[in-house]
């Protein structure tokens, strides 16, 4: 079973990898976006780590709802509402339970990803974070490691796609050949989950 501490570790691990990878995310965002994905997420997850320490929420759901709200309040751009909604809706779906099972988490995350798709209007194949998240949720039934691998492969698979949502969509065909920064950061979030599980 997974307790609040597991979810705090998830967020902390993600914050650390976003911190580490911020420059790479920004570099990926440079040719097809506006070169700020890394710095924006870095600002948001730094704030998430701080607020989790300060408020110390005691259920898995509360950890994610608080983290999501903090991202919405600090990131801006499209990433703030999208990542914020992902975590908030996943947290809400977990309810008030003090501990949750892995299957329960997979279901909640699926609800979170559905909410992101509804909010942003993106579907798989549009070259967005969805292309990493959808395969990750599918693989989560097997293991955290499988989810991480699926998300990473999903992010890599965005390279030959043409962007249809977000700022990269303005490039049309010229967005082809660049890995999507949103799918890349989504893979970091999923990797954080595996890390929290000690995998």
């Amino acid at each position: 079973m997974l307790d609040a501490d597991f979810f705090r570790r998830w967020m902390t691990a993600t914050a650390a990898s976003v911190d580490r990878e911020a420059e790479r995310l920004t570099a990926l965002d440079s040719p097809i976006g506006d070169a700020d994905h890394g710095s924006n997420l870095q600002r948001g997850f730094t704030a998430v780590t701080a607020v989790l320490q300060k408020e110390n929420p005691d259920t898995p759901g509360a950890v994610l709802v608080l983290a999501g709200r903090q991202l919405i309040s600090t990131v801006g751009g499209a990433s703030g509402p999208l990542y914020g909604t992902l975590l908030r809706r996943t947290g809400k779906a977990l309810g008030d339970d003090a501990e949750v099972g892995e299957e329960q988490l997979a279901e909640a995350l699926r609800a979170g990803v559905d909410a992101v798709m509804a909010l942003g209007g993106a579907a798989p194949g549009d070259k967005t974070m969805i292309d990493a998240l959808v395969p990750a949720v599918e693989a989560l039934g097997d293991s955290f490691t499988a989810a991480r691998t699926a998300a990473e492969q999903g992010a890599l698979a965005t390279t030959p796609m043409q962007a249809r949502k977000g700022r990269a969509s303005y490039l049309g065909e010229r967005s082809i050949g660049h890995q999507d920064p949103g799918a890349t950061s989504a893979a970091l979030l999923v990797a954080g989950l595996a890390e929290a599980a000690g995998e």
Partner: protein
Amino acid sequence: MKMLINVPETVVADALRGMAAAHPELTVDVDNRVIVRRDAPVAGKVALVSGGGSGHEPLHGGFVGPGMLSAACPGEVFTSPVPDQMLRAAAAVDSGAGVLFIVKNYTGDVLNFDMAAELAEDEGIQIAKVLVNDDVAVTDSLYTAGRRGTGATLFVEKIAGAAAEEGQPLERVEAVARQINESSRSFGVALSAVTTPAKGSPTFDLPPGELELGIGIHGEPGRERRAMMTSREIADFAVHAVLEDLQPRNPVLVLVNGMGATPLLELYGFNAEVQRVLGERGVAVARTLVGNYVTSLDMAGASVTLCQVDEEVLRLWDAPVRTPGLRWGV
């Protein structure tokens, strides 16, 4: 790349502190990043709130004041503000007559303003929204994020601002804003790439001998890249692109807008060519505005925005405005 900054992290806050010092007629909340006209909330008046990423100055903070915006929320550089800022702005300016959110069509701006509208309505503030999407360089289809909001934002903010100043009700101010957006089209060109403080180097590669046609206000590329053209050739291309889409029957407002690094000498010269093309196409010009209004940091280049107007809209355009970035009739 040399920039007149301290560190990238404080660029927006530093600019707001400087703006506060230069404009005591505005209330600048540096910590919460909200710029409000000092006499807000004005009793009985619909409030206009806009915002977006920083780096487009004077948009939007420079358009706060009597006759235009009630408040503006600057985000990080090229990043939309967060809902908390918009909610704070709406609460500061609402007199009970409602608030119009003026939102440029970028995914981040749309999502954050949508969230802010929900939060504001929860607090009993009546919200209306208008989406600005005037850029003809972008294909508008189910499979794109839609047209970008660019130069027409100034027309919407000024003209809807004048309607609000007269005491028109929210649904009327919203209708005016929507009408101005629908009557406006833009096309921009870049002669150089843009450098954001966070990155410190050009965000895209534009060789010295080339220009990008159909550029957005974040330096997002547009239609195509070509060998450098003359001002005359660029005006032909840009104005034709706009007229292909707008086909005005009435006179137009013309905005010849600099992207930040193109001097007025060039912009006025470019305007001469724009006016020539309009004349050749039989389009009557009611008013022309030339300058840096909707900028893109240090990008060189310009955009042309046309807005088809009737007598009533022209009257609202000519109405007094008193803001740091636009000021006449007072």
